């Protein structure tokens, strides 16, 4: 067991976890942050996406020890209401299992583009979200939501 200290959704937390515990399990089982989902456990679906120091990662592939002293954001602390609202209004949500990961991935790419002053394009969004699978929507509602959120944010 190791003692792990990291910031989750703005709060410093300490947990005792097995050394090779996955970040996904630490969030879900030790911190009861079940908004982060497991769809495959092998880095393919993106349902487990969280932000580590602002960058999206598949938490099923990240050993928790790697986030020591770092900043982790899960859907429960995602803030940034305009993206959530846009997903809810534009058909970006159906069964919802991909939604937390999709929202965090969207947030990360919109933030990056805004920081670089790059325009947000549909093709760019599709590429940025290609690591997050959604089986329900056909992606149209998700892309529409991201475009709306971006329009609203700038």
């Amino acid at each position, binding site marked *: 067991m190791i003692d792990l200290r990291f910031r989750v959704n703005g709060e410093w937390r300490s947990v005792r976890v097995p050394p090779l515990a996955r970040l996904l399990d630490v969030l*879900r089982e030790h911190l*009861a*942050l*079940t*908004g*982060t*989902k*497991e*769809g*495959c*456990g*092998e880095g*393919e*679906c993106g*349902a487990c996406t969280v932000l580590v120091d602002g960058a999206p990662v598949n938490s099923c592939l990240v050993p928790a020890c790697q986030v020591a002293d770092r900043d982790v954001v*899960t*859907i*429960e602390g*995602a803030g940034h209401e305009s993206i*959530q*609202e846009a*997903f*809810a*209004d534009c*058909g970006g*949500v*159906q*069964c*919802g*299992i*991909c*939604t*937390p990961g999709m*929202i965090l991935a969207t947030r990360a790419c919109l933030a990056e583009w805004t920081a670089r002053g790059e325009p947000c394009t*549909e093709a760019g*969004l*599709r*590429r940025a*979200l*290609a*690591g*997050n*699978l*959604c*089986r*329900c*929507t*056909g*992606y*149209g*509602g*998700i*892309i529409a939501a991201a475009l709306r959120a971006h329009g609203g944010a700038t």
Partner: protein
Amino acid sequence: MAFVGAFTRRPDADAKVRGAARYVADLDVPDAWLGGTVRADVARGRLVRIDRDPGFDFTRVVVVTAADIPGRNVVALITDDQPLLAQDAIEHHGEPIALVAAPDRATLLAALAALRPVIAARTPCFDMEASAVVWKRIAIDRGDVDAVWAKAHRVVEGTFHTGSQEQMYIEPQGCVAWPPDRHGVVVVRGSLQCPYYVQKALMAALDLPAERARVVACTVGGGFGGKEDYPSVIACHAALLARAAGRPVKLLFDRHEDLAVTPKRHPCRVWHRTAVAADGTLLAMDIDVRMDGGAYTTLSPVVLSRGVLHATGPYRCANVRVRGAVVATNHVPYGAFRGFGAPQTCFAVERQMDRIATELGMHPVALRRHNALAPGDRTATGQLLDDSVAAHAVLDAVVAETGCARMPWRTQKRGRRRRGFGVSLFWHGAGFTGSGETKLKSRVAAAVLADGRVEVAAAATEIGQGTEAMLRAIAADSLGCGAADVALTEPDTGRAPDSGPTVASRTCMIVGGLVAQACRQLRDRVGGDEARPFRDRAAAFVRDGGDGRVEVEYHAPPGIVWDEANYRGDAYPVYGYGADVVEVEVDVATFAVKVLRFCTAIDVGRAIQPGLVRGQIEGGSLQALGFGHLEVVTTQAGRLRQDRMATCIIPTAVDAPPMRVLLVERPFQHGPFGAKGVGEMPADGGAPALAAAIEDAIGIAVDAVPATPERLLAAWLQTHPEEAL
């Protein structure tokens, strides 16, 4: 009407975008143990015994085998041929043999490894054409096909194949079961589409009366048919373990296990022989359908039934012979996936229509227009169609949008990247096939609460499609109240009457219809001056002792008659119609196919929640396009080859084309506000239109899907032998 037809935010969206929705894996169950399954590692054999590794301390876990089942060792569904746990015969790879529950994952894995089934292998059968065991045969006859061949201008033949397909809901399957409480009630919560199917299975396995088997559906992370029948297996397994362990047990599949053992779309072969007149009129259709059902009956008979009933496509033809069979093999049982047999037969008939068009030198749009069903026509089963038929309307809509009727089809193209387009026309029967709904007798209740709100109780599950928003809109407009004045019960067999399973595009038309009926009765009963808010009147009505509860039961609309023995009559209360146009670019160096544009027109009768209907159409259409060229599901020695998400691929946001969705509304007079169904129909048309587009682009016949680059290359080399290495 304030809510029907309006864009409203779905009631479950807020919890979902905040990560607050609770799926089965998110349930906090104190003291729960984890369950796991020991499985067969051969496709066919005889279970001799189960050895236990003496090095493992089995007192730390509980083990359940077939001998520990208190009730019947069957997965009760249609035919009781599938055991919950193998006792003697092993019929497919991954068949469950024993169950284990343990306090933690490490102990569970150790225990699973310490149980070693000894199996004497037998020779399996994987070839559906060679299988002699038939789960179900169906024949449909109309007119006399054999009298036509000699007179026909042309007789066109074709054989078409469709592969299996994985539902790939992003949430793997799972259930949590609790041991009997002090009243003997067993509770199961899970990711499931049909609480009452699971209840029926639990009652048989645990020998329980209905009131002691309570099943609740959690928030479901996608189903698409994949969570129609299989959750019964997981629920029974979890309940057996919970009973043995005396504590709750979570039986949650990881992706690998889910892919390996849950049912997928039936592989299918369809043969067509069609007699046509010089003007393109279909004179006779002779069709033979064969599906691989896998190792047990499961839902195969009803999948075949829907398949053969859609086999002619939405076309008029006076002489039809359809023969269908679904056969046994030693594959993992195939099961329900959106479309339920229709995508397979729809692919075949649409490719056959294109083949006929090519033979006659007709444009594929013109051939379809010439033969499309219209009001007053009869189907192959003799069903007389009324003015709810929208075959021409949907075709006209996509033609107007894309201009495809003027695009030349199958002209020689040049260059490395070649473009083409394809069109499909399809239909989908709404609700259960034949007398299914009449037998099911679905029930729905609506009751006024003390504060004047109305609680609607139905067992329909929200699996992402938007059931809650749809039922709420129907209830609110039927009552004349606000959507917020309607509460929906959880899909819980302990609280909601049996409104039937969440399958077959039936939730809107059938369950929604019952909700409308119950709510209208309640509105009449409450009465009063409608200028006053319903809620005030309803609260006063129950305060004054009025009976504020209504329960209604399904009765087939007048005039709907089905003859199951002869496959004659009204196979479905009504059909929805759809047309797709796909434009592709094919790279003849790599045979990569890029879908450039997709346009679809879908007739849903009436779109109760247009935003959600569009979502269903877009999502279903992308699954259909995936079925057409990307999604490969194959087996080797009865074992799934694509056993991980990395290899069992589905379309990403980059693969998905921009979609143009056109809603067509040809109301069904007996549907709630005119609604038919929508869930499955978008799964039918994408693959054939995509195959046609590839054919147009590169000039090779695409008679099988998925049209992978490997397949296209092989077909290309047949027509371009000079390019073979």
